[in-house]
């Protein structure tokens, strides 16, 4: 290799010059390379002769004083903050410490992220619509739903989150706050612009655009704004495809759930005798539809806000929703 020969020849010539040989004698050893080597050797000699060899005594003395001064300051600093022996050993002692330290650091970072993450979610859990952390709460709910693969568990979780929406609206009412809300529920009554969805009063004015085919008993999604105990609807969407419930679920069996659910409707005589029915327990709906009756009669909000259970009853009772 020509280049390597040139590098080697240069080195040999430099070695020869060091031992007192003159340049021409060196170049005579490599006639084909002489033209290439000559300028480099000239430069090398120039670089060598122009070098500074002496170290001024004052420079060494001043430099040493400065270094020792710096060391003294470091000692003072160390004395004011004594390093723990264990920490010192941790930093410098064991072989393989660096790898171990990396592992520990990684674990610590993961722990920090996990605890920090759950801390954030925990703080967001009590947030309400309109709060800064509310998107975190909803995102975390989506994540939880995404991570559940069992249909039963997923349905339970969805119901839990639906209940949470109602709870949030109640808290917004209590706090007299105006905020955008988005929830799903059973349409219980519909009278002109005054609807009752999942036990909550919903005002549907001209701006709202309810979809066609929404009748009492169906599950709807309400998008609106809380305002002094009423939700002013902006949009009402018919939920056409409810969650499928597995057959082995006890709540899906028409024979088992329908009978006890319908049982309370034996009371209609009692209700029918009531001279002035309240708005939330409108009897015409109850008498016309046994399902709605069972929902309206239930005094437990948790029961009245369970559209999936209602759908179960509908599956067993009639096909009003087109299922």
């Amino acid at each position, binding site marked *: 290799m020509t*280049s*390597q020969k*040139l*590098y*080697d020849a*240069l*080195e040999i010539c*430099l*070695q020869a010059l*060091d031992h007192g040989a003159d340049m021409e004698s060196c170049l005579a050893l490599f006639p084909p390379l002489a033209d290439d080597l000559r*300028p*480099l050797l*000239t*430069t*090398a000699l*120039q*670089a*060598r002769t*122009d*070098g*500074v*060899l*002496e*170290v*001024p005594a004052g*420079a*060494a003395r*001043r*430099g*040493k004083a*400065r*270094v*020792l001064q*710096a*060391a*003294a300051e*470091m*000692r003072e600093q*160390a004395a004011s903050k004594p390093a723990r022996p264990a920490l010192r050993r941790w*930093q*410098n002692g064991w072989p393989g410490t660096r790898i171990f330290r990396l592992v520990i650091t990684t674990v610590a970072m993961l722990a920090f992220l996990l605890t920090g993450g759950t801390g954030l979610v925990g703080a967001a859990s009590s947030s309400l619509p309109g709060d800064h952390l509310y998107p975190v709460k909803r995102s975390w709910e989506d994540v939880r739903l995404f991570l559940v693969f069992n249909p039963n568990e997923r349905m339970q979780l969805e119901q839990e989150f639906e209940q949470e929406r109602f709870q949030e609206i109640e808290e917004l009412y209590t706090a007299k706050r105006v905020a955008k809300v988005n929830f799903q529920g059973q349409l219980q009554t519909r009278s002109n612009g005054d609807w009752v969805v999942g036990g909550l009063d919903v005002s549907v004015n001209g701006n709202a655009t309810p979809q066609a085919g929404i009748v009492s008993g169906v599950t709807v999604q309400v998008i609106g704004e809380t305002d002094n105990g009423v939700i002013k609807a902006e949009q009402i969407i018919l939920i056409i495809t409810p969650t499928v419930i597995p057959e082995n679920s006890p709540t899906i069996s028409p024979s088992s759930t329908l009978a006890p659910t319908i049982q309370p409707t034996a009371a209609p005589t009692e209700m029918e005798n009531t001279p002035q029915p309240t708005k939330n327990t409108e009897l015409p709906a109850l008498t016309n539809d046994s399902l709605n009756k069972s929902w309206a009669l239930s005094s437990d909000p948790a029961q009245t806000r369970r559209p999936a259970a209602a759908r179960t009853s509908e599956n067993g009772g009639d096909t009003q929703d087109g299922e």
Partner: protein
Amino acid sequence: MVYSTNPKTQQGFLNSIMSLPAKNELEGLQQLDPQAISAVYDRYFPDVYRFVRYRLNDEHLAEDIASDAFVRLLEAVRSGRGPQTNIKAWLLATASHIVVDHQRKAYRRPENELPESAPDAAPGPVTQQEQRERERSLKKALAALTEEQQSVIAMRFNLGYSLEETAALLKKNVNSVKQLQFRALAALKRALGEIL
């Protein structure tokens, strides 16, 4: 000066001159022992100073940079980031970085470049002016080289290190240093030609 390209010789050289004393020196530096610091300083300062001074035309700046390399060594050893065995290589590399930083700053601010009134180290009255001019030209040409090229020129032609020593200090093999040396001399020749 002995030149050898035998890898075994190079390794033996490394083992003999670097590992054993360096371990004791590092322990002393870590404890900030003044005697150990003085010993390390006395041992390495001349080479560090000459290495820096060869590349800069300012005696005071070279003095500052050389001592700064030692202060950085103390800090690095205290924080566990210092050299494991080869203190000299660490010091020269650190000094080289500082020099290059300075050269870059000087390049951006030409008014702070090499002072005209730099003290003359060569004593001869007749050749004093010529010597000073040659030095100035050399340092200016060196500043145009890469950091590695500057280092190999300074180590080989100023400090007088062998090929093996230079390879060990630059953490390269001997053949790489031969190639680097060839290219450094060619670059230096070009730079000198542009200056003169």
